[in-house]
């Protein structure tokens, strides 16, 4: 790592007031089976250096294979940034740690023979196709490791190795002009966890295939979800995406300050609301926790060398804090809570969700249903959309079940719901105690676009008088 030290020296001697460099090795194994075809079995390895430089209060970044070259280039880019700078960027203080951190795991997922993984996914794919009416089956598994070294001009010397894996199975049923899908354990890549292959084994994928296929077929004959205002109970993976879109993204302080205005937009959670804005009901407490076991947003240090920690974002319904970086935290007069991560060596760190968790409540699932006269229980995300201040959203789910006088009755297809974020969370009057941590491997943000792995702990919850059945 002498070359990293050298590049810090080059940038500092060129006049940079701050610089950091990351060397990152990304390793990824991806298996995708479609029907009886193991269509895509790929092993990817990327590595390289990415360097950030703060020169005259302006940022520059360069990525490549030669640390000394990128040091020169990053300074050049920063000098260019200074040509259109209004105020000098200042970073909140951080202790320069020297440390090593790695994912605890029992069974390294890369050590499991690929034959075994392909066989499992093919067997699952065949089982998904068994129920008559299933037209397409899809199974997938992804394993990723990110080994990274972080050196800063302030003296930080941190090495981390993060490994996660996950999988899914999915069946699509077709009949005439309709198409319905069911997925297990959830859709869009499935569930992922920062642990070893023991996580894949715990999913018991094969045991769920028959039921997943049958549910897809049954949806074809199910009535459409009714339209109107009624109570909604959300299954925890759908709630994970709800938390992601309507709490995680709007509490990213870079978004709040306008840094993402030209892409996915800004946020309604503006700084004057901290500590006094009613985001939701007293049942709603949401935390950002990069220390919780097995989360995709768990690490020792973020990509600015800030140690992992826990921050309350919503405290019993009151908006109380942000996800921050050193740059944005300084504007609030606070230390960073360590949310900066980059997709790879060739991207700058951005504020990314860590594990954004809705804290569990006291209710059993049966108690959530108990006093619902008319409502819908919705499972597994199928569609999502939210406005550019994170206020109006609309979600579609794979499957719904009517709730009538406290009982689950009829399966309905194409369930959807829409609301305004504070009204929706304000209508939450019960969170169950069946808490589970979900891992989403594909959160998009930034220009150039970066995809990041994040975690969400959620439990099924009940929302009163919500508009359902749109479109």
């Amino acid at each position, binding site marked *: 790592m002498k070359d990293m030290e050298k590049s810090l020296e080059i940038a500092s001697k060129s006049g940079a007031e701050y610089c950091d460099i990351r060397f990152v090795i990304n390793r990824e194994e991806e298996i*995708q089976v479609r029907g009886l075809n193991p269509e*895509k079995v790929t*092993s990817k390895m990327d590595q390289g250096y990415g360097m950030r430089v703060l020169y005259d209060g302006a940022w*520059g970044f360069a990525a*490549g294979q030669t640390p000394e070259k990128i040091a020169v280039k990053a300074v050049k880019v920063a000098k260019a940034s200074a040509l259109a700078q209004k105020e000098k960027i200042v970073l909140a203080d951080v202790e320069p740690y020297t440390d090593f951190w790695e994912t605890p795991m029992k069974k390294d997922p890369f050590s499991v023979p690929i034959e075994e993984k392909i066989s499992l996914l093919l067997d699952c794919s065949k089982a998904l196709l068994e129920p008559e009416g299933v037209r397409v089956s899809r199974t997938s598994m992804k394993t990723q490791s990110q080994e990274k070294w972080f050196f800063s001009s302030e003296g930080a010397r941190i090495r981390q190795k993060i490994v996660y894996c996950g999988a899914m199975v999915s069946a699509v049923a077709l009949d005439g002009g309709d198409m319905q899908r069911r997925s297990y354990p959830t859709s869009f890549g499935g569930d992922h966890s920062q642990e070893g292959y023991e996580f894949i084994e715990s999913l018991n994928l094969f045991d769920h295939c028959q039921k997943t296929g049958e549910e897809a077929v049954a949806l074809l004959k199910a009535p459409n979800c009714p339209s109107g205002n009624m109570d909604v109970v959300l299954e925890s993976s759908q709630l994970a995406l709800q938390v992601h879109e309507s709490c995680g993204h709007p509490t990213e302080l870079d978004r709040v300050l306008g840094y993402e205005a030209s892409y996915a937009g800004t946020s309604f959670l503006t700084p004057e609301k901290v500590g006094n804005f009613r985001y939701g009901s007293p049942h709603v407490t949401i935390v950002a926790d990069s220390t919780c076991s097995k989360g995709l947003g768990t690490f020792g240090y973020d990509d600015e060398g800030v140690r992992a920690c826990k921050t309350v974002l919503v405290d019993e319904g009151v908006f109380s804090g942000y996800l921050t970086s050193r740059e944005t935290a300084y504007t609030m007069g606070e230390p960073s809570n360590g949310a900066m991560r980059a997709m790879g060596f060739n991207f700058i760190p951005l504020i990314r969700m860590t594990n954004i968790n809705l804290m569990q409540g006291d209710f059993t699932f049966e108690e959530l249903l108990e006093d619902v006269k008319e409502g819908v229980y919705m499972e597994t995300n199928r569609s999502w*959309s939210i*406005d550019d201040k994170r206020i109006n959203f*609309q979600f579609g789910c794979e499957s719904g079940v009517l709730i009538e006088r406290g009982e689950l009755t009829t399966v309905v297809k194409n369930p959807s719901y829409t609301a305004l974020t504070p009204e929706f969370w304000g209508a939450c009057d019960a969170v169950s105690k069946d808490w589970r941590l979900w891992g989403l491997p594909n959160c998009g943000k930034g*220009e150039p676009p970066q995809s990041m792995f994040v975690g969400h702990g959620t439990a099924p919850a009940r929302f009163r008088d919500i508009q359902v059945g*749109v479109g």
Partner: protein
Amino acid sequence: MSKEDVFSILEKVLKATEADQCEAYLSGISWGLTRFANSYIHQNVAEDNERLTVRVVFGKKIGKARTNQLDPESIAEVVQRAEKIARAQKETPDFVTLPEPTPVSQVKGFYKETAEVSPEERALTVKASIDVADEKGITVSGAYYTGVEELAAMNSLGIEAYFKGTVSSFKINTSIEGGTGLAQDFSRNHKNLNPEVLTEKACKKALASRKTEKIPPGVYPVILEETAVCDMLGNLAAMTFGAQSYQEGRSAFSGHLGEKMVDESISVWDNGLEEYGFPVPFDTEGVAKQKVDIFSEGVAQDVVYDSFYAHKEGKKSTGHSVDVPIPIGPLPTNLFMGKGTSNLDDLISGCEKGILVTRFHYTNPMHRLKTVITGMTRDGTFLVENGEVVKGLKNLRFTQNILEALSATEGISNEWGTMRMEFVKVTICAPALHLGKFTFTGETLF
């Protein structure tokens, strides 16, 4: 790198393998992106990176591996990694063969002046836009990128393809109390971008949308500006225009090719060789891009193919293999909707009552087979009455079947706007549309 250097690397791959068939694909990028917000440059990046992907085939067993290290040892290692996977693989029953060579046309995609744009030049261009907006009391954000991409493919059946092109884009969002605006353009030649014109356009839009009123959700005629149409067409392409969804019965085209599905004024095609948009002469398998007519006068004509899905039907690939993180199959990559004869002002003056939409935001499918999507309006939504824009509107949520919307086409503008879906490298060029019916299902607070 030079073409010879790149081919030398790809040849090493082909020589290193014992597989029955082998394919090597290299994609390189050397670029810079200057991003601005709150009227200053807040992110400014430069990247040099090359990725070598190797696919090997033993019978019907296929393995794929990728590296971004191009030294001889790394090239040998990536080949071995792909072979190891292939040997451990199960057979892919529907696989026939890697593609045979096809003559690859030359397209002009490289502009020396664009390749040479420096970080300073990008910063000064951004600063000029900031200064123009500052004078009007408008805050700006956006991104300006320029660079060079290098693509090459070679396979053991004789494919050899190479392309070096430049890339550029300027996007500006404007913001003033109560109003926002957007203007953007993409081109292989940065001289075509015209940031000054885009800045003025986005400022004008923000000023016009400052005072907004609510309008109840419902079904309205709409005039969708070019960016909104590009967004809608991109969604339709992902759901409908590829051979994977078509063969699986998940495309609205499945079983309906040859049928009139939208208004006869609508024609859509993909053409990787057309200089407008982002032309690339071949796909990630090295297969030459074919022009594919998708809608001709409202009639569904065809979908796009890569070699895998083409061979399943006994056809030849149309050159639309893509390498994207999602298992979506072949995709259009340089997609066009035919122009009309009116300009945007004519469309507005021909509208008795309707809603003018600058762009959509966060669109996503609700029902893929039925081509139903939802999304929000953004950066300028206006009420049109008696042929004139009369006031700004608060943003609305729509939930709409795209084919039904296109079936009610009442007017098409005579200019293309361009949008590039960066994550999947798909470029879309489309005119503005006047549609007779469009369903808005919700509203927001701004």
